[in-house]
């Protein structure tokens, strides 16, 4: 096994086994040994998180384990990210994210946010119980590429429709993603959203699945 492969495997394992210290150590080694930090993030940390998603789907892992894995991932990410150099020609992608007004659940939203962090996006996290207008204002203000909203209760889900209408009216270019336990593809279509994070009835696996899709995206598999 080459040095790089070994380090990527160590990063992956540290995330899966939720060992924060091991993760930080492996990230530092990646830098010391000259591994491209972007590769370390995507094929090390994010790949590990993808495996966590599989474990979660088969009920091997549960919410606490997943959150601890996320903690480990952030330990590594904090070390690697400052060293990722971006092409000046391609401006950094940005996202406005938050849990919708009336909803105070944000475990799922934070996992989705993690996915954008991993990808090196500019993340504008509005937090939870975000007034509908604030989504619109922030989106117009920073002109983000993506607006991501989450609702964990069926009652609050209805507010997303209003936000989509308001944003699309002023800025039809913005891509809108919805997520959360009660959100289905039908709902997303009905509300006029562009994307929908497939959910296995739980925001956690959904957030993780999006990481997988993002990795494909970064590799140029999907456009």
């Amino acid at each position, binding site marked *: 096994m080459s040095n790089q492969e070994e380090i990527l495997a160590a990063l992956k394992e540290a995330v899966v086994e939720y060992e924060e210290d091991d993760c930080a150590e492996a990230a530092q080694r990646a830098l010391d040994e000259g591994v491209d930090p972007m590769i370390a993030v995507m094929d090390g940390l994010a790949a590990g998180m993808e495996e966590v998603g599989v474990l979660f789907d088969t009920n091997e892992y549960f919410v*606490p384990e997943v959150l601890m894995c996320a903690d480990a991932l952030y330990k590594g990410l904090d070390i690697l990210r400052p060293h990722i150099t971006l092409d000046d020609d391609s401006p950094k992608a940005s996202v406005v994210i938050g849990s919708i007004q009336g909803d105070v659940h944000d475990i799922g939203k934070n996992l989705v946010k993690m996915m954008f962090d991993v990808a090196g996006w500019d993340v504008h996290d509005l937090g939870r119980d975000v007034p509908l207008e604030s989504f619109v204002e922030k989106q117009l203000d920073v002109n983000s590429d993506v607006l991501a909203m989450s609702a964990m209760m069926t009652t609050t889900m209805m507010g997303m429709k209003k936000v989509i209408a308001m944003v699309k009216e002023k800025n039809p270019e913005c891509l809108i993603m919805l997520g959360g336990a009660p959100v289905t593809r039908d709902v997303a279509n009905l509300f006029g959203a562009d994307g929908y994070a497939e959910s296995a009835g739980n925001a956690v696996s959904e957030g993780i699945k999006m990481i997988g899709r993002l990795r494909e995206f970064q590799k140029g598999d999907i456009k």
Partner: protein
Amino acid sequence: MAQETVNVIFQPSGRRGEVPKGCNIIEASRLLGCDIEALCGETKVCGKCIVRIEDGHFEKYNIQSSMDHVTPWQEEVEAKFINPENREKGFRLGCVAKIEDDILVFVPEESRAGKQVVSKAARDIHIDFNPTIKLYTIELKKPDFEDKTGDWERMTNGLAREYGLTDLTIDIMTLRTLPGALRAKNWTVTVSVWNDKEVIRIQPGKVTHTYGIAIDVGTTTCAGYLCDLTTMEVIGTSSMMNPQCKYGEDVMARITFHMTTPGGLKRMSDDIIEGINSLIDKAITLTHPKKKKIKKKKGEEGPVEYKEIIEEGVEYLRINKEDIEDVTIGFNTAMHHILLGLDPEPVGLAPFPPVIHHSLDIKARDLGIDINASSYIFAMPNEAGFVGGDNVGVLLAEEPYKSDEIQLIIDIGTNGELILGNRHKLYSSSCATGPAMEGAQLAFGMRAAPGAIERIEIDPDTQDVDYRVIGHDKSRKFSKPEEMKVKGICGSGILDVLAELYRASVITKTGVFNKKFLKDNPRFRKNADTGQPEFILAYKEDSSIGKDIVITQKDVRQIQLAKGALYAGCKLMMKRMGIEKVDTVKIAGAFGTHVDREKALVMGLFPDCEIENIHGVGNAAGDGCRAALLNKKKRDEANWCARNVQYLELTVEPTFEKDFMEAMQMPHMTDKFPHLEGVVPDHVLNQGPKGPVKPEVKS
């Protein structure tokens, strides 16, 4: 060619699935494991299998159900058992109606084989006697030319003179009965006065008893306690599933149904009112002798007649609907709003404000509740968020605001409600436990009825399972397999199972099946269809449904979510109060009386506490509702409680996420449980994140 199938859903059991098109409802119920009474073996003569086909679109199941989706009405068979009014409502005989297209079937309590065990029984708690309805018997002089005062003034003058009652008012419905009542028994009447203010009933002659009913409307189950308002005695209890269950399992789903379906609120409101009327009916029927249909001679026509079967030595009170003069209702805020037809939408959105906090006195007839015409319903006040009058009921029954010791009261239902504090400070909060602990959403979850596993013990050495089922008095160890007739697992069994799986090392503290340890254990396997790991609680030969009864990894996770939410709630409240431990833990809820306190602590339902100080207090919400029925001071106390208990919105507490996460493990990820030492083996209690390691036995 593949056989055509249709979707069938049975309510309230929630059993659902596909069945071959053209089979009748009884056959479908057997296929899907929902038992309908069929004494005659489908020969269409017993009339026991009456069910109702629901009409309309049901978002939750995504099906369109209609009476036209079954074969047409058979007048000669069905008219004997179902009157035209009920036929209109969609009632049919299960053995007659064959299924042609998707349907949602409601199985009324009477038609269910294996009646639910009423676990919401009334408990003996101390209540001061001071009912809202008081009876005054008065003898009046009949009018003559000397004194030609009107009937009402004549009576109120008498009541003022004899009992010092002044400023009385009267409801029009009662006033209409006044002249007749006065003259029926020679100007002696018994007057029912509500709150020393309003005359709500006038009966001829001397009457010594009057009745009321306290109703606890839960998201999933409802219970009624029929009480004698003059002796405080509980005469009868009745219970039923909340008929709104078909619109969604939890309060959020019900509120969403209202938001997405035009007329949804009215449908749900009408359903629960109809339910309450049948609950009252059921309770008063118990005070009458049983009835038997009189057999008709061949060819004899005419309406069905009944004869009473009077048991010797039994005194029948024969209470009628008109004799119910007072009703108190306790419910969570969402149930409150829906029953009263108040818009529940705002209460479903943070910060969850209710339409009203204060209690309400509403004329029963305005709600369509069929009791004495002029009587009032007392709707318990709401606290905040989803914490409503049911939690106020728990407070009234347990009175932590009168105690010095710090009590933690956990009311387990579809929504978990928590109270923490003592006479100096009280907090309340609620958490979404979901229906898992009541048996819903688990692979073999069921309600507490015969065939339900209610107690479980797992041998820590062999991982062998011993259990008890409702309806059979000996445990598995002392029975033959065929005696067990297991069908599933109910609430109290579910509380046991997590603790026992953990204690016996079948699962690790994180909740995952302990594969390394179980290895080739025959009870542990991967489900052939789903690939999910599962553990067999009862083998096929013990079961009456021809299947192994298992608990799956997903089931374990569901229970963990519920228990984690409760534990996190307790902990956040303790943090807010600045305390490390509580003096007493009380567990309320439908199975509060059945809970095994040691196992509740082992699974980590709440933070560490001395096992002796953990108590099951049964359906405290219902008891509190009964207290408000029998003692009007309790109604003032209820309003005081509702506004003086500080409500804590758990999910916005800064450490909620972390606390919730840590609390999902058994008994907790990091918190210490000194009181479990000796109860749980050391190597299990102090296991690392990778599971218990059994110490080597030195030879």
